């Protein structure tokens, strides 16, 4: 079977390929003469003429020549004859295919043995298999790995600590298929010789360089989309091959997938199926992270070097997750290498990134990763684009009477960093204790002093000005977790966590004014903002494998939120001072039921929210039915509640862009949603066709406006929360070529998000409403190179446009312009599209440590995409100017591993 299948990007053309991948039984050879052919040519003919399926590495077989006359030979006999007098061995799989390997290569030998059925009698039947899944190279435990008993639908997933339990295993010689994204799929036969109460299964990461013994089904896989309803999973190790602008980015990689919008180029946030980023629960090692973005949202704040596993539930998620109405991103941090010390460094045009992994004895592992940006041209380009620096740098320097001086030009000092640390202690085989810490922060200092020194030594009154402009925002969080496997069927996870989101801004002018008596009066004018959210959570999750058909999961948790938001005009006058606290007490129970071809998860979640003194009951249900091993039907339903919301300020040029508030009984209602999802999938060895339709109803949505009315010597604010509801409808398509040197996917989403707010009159399309979104991702492996291209097309987002304008003379003689507008979000920006490419060269040093250098170009054909439009009245005309996203931007990055 030639492995370099052509990756046809056109949807319709893929149907013929689908048919080819079905494995037919090999035929008996009636009469065939092979005359001094190399073995690879022989195999090609066997595959072509006799329906053999043979996996082999070309370099193992191409130098062996073969001559033989077959006469009425059975398939296995043919293979035996072919390999006679060679150093090659073979394994026949259950499906009739053959795997050829070089016996002199130890890894291949071990793998082949594991793939060989134990021939003796079984000693156990109907028993419980327990074990743990680990990375072969560094001993890292692997969560959410799929383990399936061959020839059955019976299986399990490893839990977050890598442990798994399979009940009612028929006997101790069955075959298992263990698969995990980013790792080679493993076929393993049990045998009575193995420790079946503590089976350690080691998976091998898909290496950048494919060496010996390549089985086609073990090739690269970046995305996995068909394990659960509406769940996407990506391999953090694999995203390096994708084009990036500065930094590898997990969230931006999700944006390439169906149902996650890529139309907001300025945001790495997850706009999932019509939801907004704050409606996505982001869990990092079990604790909530509120600040998930760097550089005004352009980058996500998660360092891929510190992340082991990421799962995104796009909707219909289980009862064990709550507190958000749209989706869940569950991120598991790396524990660190348990076998040896390792370290690595990555450097790009934007940031440097370093990590160390230090095992201490046999029971402790640790991992620390740190990333910090530096102010390169690329950084400055993005910073200027998204900070509005160019627009604001002169605006604060006011001369007398409100006139403006040009401020002395200053370049804002700005940087971001993030730090991840995790220490894991495994005192016994049953216990795992881990401490995980995360801190990500952005700092910006745009302060400046404008002294007109010959005018009285730096005094002010508008002639000279000292402006403080400091912004600092980020998240500090940590969790301490103790997991214990009390018995093979009972697992308890206890976690306490703390998360603190902070955002402060000090944008003030310091003025020293001498009064009539000559005494200096100090005046501090401007704005001081402070948003501080604290989240103290304690929770216990229980997993109870009742029998092979039921896994009951239940848990309790309590979260105390303490949120402050102050907006002060100067150091003595506070305009907004909001301080809310509230307890959310939660309980849930769900049952993962597996009945032959049908699996389903009924569940219920109960929340008591102290500020509203109300209880919220959220039933949920998801189900999957395997029509055949390839065809699957799926559905999900669920109710969701959200008590903490991020309010995004509409005015991007003023201050921090967002702050968090706690729902109350008054201005900020509890957001609620109901999800209905229906889908189907076809998946075989190489291809996945997946379609999911959804309908999401939302109530209790909030929009916020803080009208800022600057006038000389004073600033006034009108705070307004609008309340409403809405719905999101859509359908997501995915066609994925999973394996092969050329792999990738095409996705298309059709969606509609409409809001209805009493304050705005008639219903309108939400800001994030994108009708059509098409994405194509292709990665081609060529020798040591990974070549990748991504193309995104998104139809234009809605916006409110002017229909005209007028001018009024106010009572004080001033005039003011007013712009009249269309219906809210009544027009659409132009379509968005963009092509990014990347080339990554991978190599290993003599000790096998991975290195790579990557070059990528963002927006290759320099498409001018519109971010927003600005309007003003000039000479009686309403004039519009388009503000655009980034044009062509190249990037270079290096990655170096110690081991």
């Amino acid at each position, binding site marked *: 079977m030639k492995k370099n299948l052509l990756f046809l990007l056109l949807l319709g053309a893929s149907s013929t390929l689908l048919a080819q991948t079905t494995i037919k039984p090999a035929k008996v050879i009636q009469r065939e003469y092979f005359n001094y052919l190399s073995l690879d040519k022989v195999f090609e003919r066997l595959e072509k003429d006799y329906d053999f399926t043979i996996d082999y590495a070309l370099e193992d077989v191409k130098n062996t020549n073969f001559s033989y006359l077959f006469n009425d030979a059975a398939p296995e006999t043919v293979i035996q004859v072919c390999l006679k007098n060679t150093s090659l061995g073979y394994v026949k799989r259950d499906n009739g295919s053959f795997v050829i390997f070089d016996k002199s290569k130890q890894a291949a030998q071990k793998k082949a043995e594991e793939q060989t059925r134990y021939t003796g009698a079984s000693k156990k039947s109907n028993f419980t298999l327990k074990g743990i899944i680990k990375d072969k190279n560094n001993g890292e435990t692997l969560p959410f790995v799929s383990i399936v008993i061959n020839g059955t639908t019976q299986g399990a997933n490893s839990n977050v600590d890598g442990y798994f339990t399979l009940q009612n295993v028929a006997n101790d010689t069955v075959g298992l298929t263990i698969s995990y994204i980013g790792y080679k799929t493993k076929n393993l036969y049990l045998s009575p010789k193995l420790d079946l109460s503590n089976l350690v299964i080691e998976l091998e990461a898909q290496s950048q360089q494919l060496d010996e013994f390549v089985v086609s089904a073990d090739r690269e896989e970046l995305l996995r989309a068909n394990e659960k309803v509406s769940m996407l999973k990506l391999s953090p190790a694999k995203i390096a091959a994708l084009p990036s602008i500065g930094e590898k980015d997990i969230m931006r990689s999700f944006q390439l997938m169906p149902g996650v919008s890529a139309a907001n180029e300025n945001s790495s946030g997850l706009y999932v199926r019509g939801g907004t980023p704050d409606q996505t629960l982001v869990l990092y090692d079990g604790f909530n992270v509120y600040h998930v973005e760097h550089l005004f949202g352009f980058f996500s704040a998660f360092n891929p070097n510190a992340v082991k596993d990421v799962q995104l539930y796009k909707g219909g998620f289980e009862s064990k997750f709550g507190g958000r109405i749209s989706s869940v991103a569950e991120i598991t941090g790396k524990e660190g290498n348990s076998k040896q010390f390792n370290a690595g460094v990555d450097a790009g045009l934007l940031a440097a990134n370093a990590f160390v992994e230090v095992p201490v004895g046999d029971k402790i592992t640790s991992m620390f990763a740190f990333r910090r940006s530096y102010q390169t041209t690329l950084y400055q380009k993005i910073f200027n684009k998204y900070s509005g620096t160019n627009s604001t740098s002169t605006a604060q320097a006011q001369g007398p009477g409100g006139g403006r001086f040009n401020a002395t030009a200053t370049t804002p000092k700005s940087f971001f960093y993030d730090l991840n640390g995790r220490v894991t202690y495994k005192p016994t085989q049953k216990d795992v204790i881990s401490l995980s810490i995360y801190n990500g922060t952005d700092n910006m200092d745009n302060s400046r002093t404008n002294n007109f020194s010959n005018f009285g030594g730096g005094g002010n*009154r508008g*002639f000279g000005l000292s402006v403080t402009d400091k912004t600092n925002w980020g998240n500090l969080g940590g969790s301490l977790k103790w997991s214990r496997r009390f018995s093979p069927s009972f697992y308890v996870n206890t976690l306490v966590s703390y998360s603190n989101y902070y955002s402060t801004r000090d944008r003030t002018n310091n003025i020293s004014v001498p009064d009539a008596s000559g005494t200096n009066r100090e005046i501090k004018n401007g704005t001081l903002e402070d948003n501080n959210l604290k989240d103290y959570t304690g929770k216990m999750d229980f997993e109870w494998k009742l029998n092979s058909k039921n896994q009951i999961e239940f848990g309790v948790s309590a979260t105390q939120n303490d949120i402050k938001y102050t907006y002060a005009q100067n150091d003595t006058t506070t305009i907004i001072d909001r301080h809310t606290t509230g307890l959310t007490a939660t309980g849930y129970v769900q049952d993962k039921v597996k009945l032959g071809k049908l699996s389903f998860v009924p569940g219920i979640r109960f929340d008591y929210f102290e500020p509203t003194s109300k209880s919220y009951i959220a039933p949920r249900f998801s189900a999957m039915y395997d029509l055949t091993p390839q065809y699957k039907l799926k559905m999900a339903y669920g109710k969701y509640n959200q008590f903490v919301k991020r309010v995004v300020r509409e005015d991007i040029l003023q201050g921090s862009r967002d702050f968090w508030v706690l729902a109350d009984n008054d201005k900020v209602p509890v957001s609620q949603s109901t999800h209905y999802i229906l889908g189907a999938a076809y998946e075989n060895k190489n291809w996945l066709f997946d379609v999911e339709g959804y309908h999401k109803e939302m109530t209790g949505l909030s929009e916020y406006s803080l009208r800022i009315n600057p006038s000389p010597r004073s600033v006034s604010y009108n705070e307004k929360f609008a309340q409403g509801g809405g719905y999101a409808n859509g359908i997501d398509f995915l066609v994925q070529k999973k394996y092969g040197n050329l792999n990738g996917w095409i996705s298309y989403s059709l969606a509609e998000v409409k809001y209805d707010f009493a304050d705005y009159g008639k219903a309108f399309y939400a800001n994030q409403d994108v009708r059509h979104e098409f994405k194509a991702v292709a990665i081609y492996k060529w020798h040591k190179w990974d070549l990748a291209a991504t193309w995104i097309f998104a139809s234009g987002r809605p916006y*409110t446009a002017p229909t*005209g304008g007028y001018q009024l003379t106010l009572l004080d003689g001033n005039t*003011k312009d*007013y712009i009249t*507008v269309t219906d809210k979000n*009544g027009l659409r920006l132009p379509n968005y599209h963009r092509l990014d490419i990347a080339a990554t060269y991978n190599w290993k040093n003599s000790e096998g440590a991975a290195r790579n250098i990557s070059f990528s170009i963002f927006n290759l054909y320099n498409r001018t995409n519109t971010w927003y439009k*600005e309007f003003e009245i000039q000479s009686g005309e309403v004039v519009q100017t388009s503000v655009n996203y980034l044009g062509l931007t190249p990037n270079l990055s290096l990655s170096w591993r110690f081991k």
Partner: protein
Amino acid sequence: MKNIISYIVITSLFFATACTKTDPLSTVDARAVVEGYLGAGDTVDIAITKEIPFGSDSSSVAEPIYGLTVSLEIDGKTIFLQPRDSGHYSANYLIQAEKTYKLKFVYNSQTVTATTTIPPRPQGFKMSASTLTITPINFSGGFPGTRPTFPDPVQLTWTNSDQTFYLSAFKNLEINQESILTGSINFGRIRRPIFNRPTQSNTTSIEPQRIQYYGNHDVLLMHVQSEYAALYEDTGSSSLNLSPPPTNISNGLGIFTGFAADTLKLYVKKP
């Protein structure tokens, strides 16, 4: 194979039907823009112009609307306003404090209406000083070598127990105005006569460095309505934040509002 074909067909059909058009915008004819301030004790004068359409290449002066029948209703009586130049409509009727007036006219077959109540006159209006002494500042040789000193701000106070809106302003009354700042420095938008916005407080101040001329000034305190205060709302200037402009005109745009003013005198002199 059958299944695959039907899958492809359904998918293709979906693609084909997906390209539907979005809702058309509701199109609106250029609306009437009213600028009507009814001051207690003043006569009536209201300007009515046309909204400037987006992308218009008309001149910077808004186009007046002539030939309207504009009426003002008070206590069941109707007063018809007389058309004058530039879209102004007026009447020699004196506005009374604490009365409610309704404006009405028909434009483009739509009845445009607006209602306002004239607020009571300000009570207890006081100023902390009636004279200010300010040293002249001369920029002719560049920035002066020494920093000028200014007197303390003049504090304005009044009674406002119900936290209604007040607007303060002051106006130089001299025919031959003598500037405090002299020389050739360009201060851009410095020569704005007024600088406050409506407040719900009972005090405000006049910063001496904002005064431009010597001589006699009227210091006005205007009791205004919330519909007037709303005019100061920033309604955005980009597609990220644009919102409809505040107006109390039904089927139209602009403002129709009452106010009542009190005036004190301020004299600004040289040392």
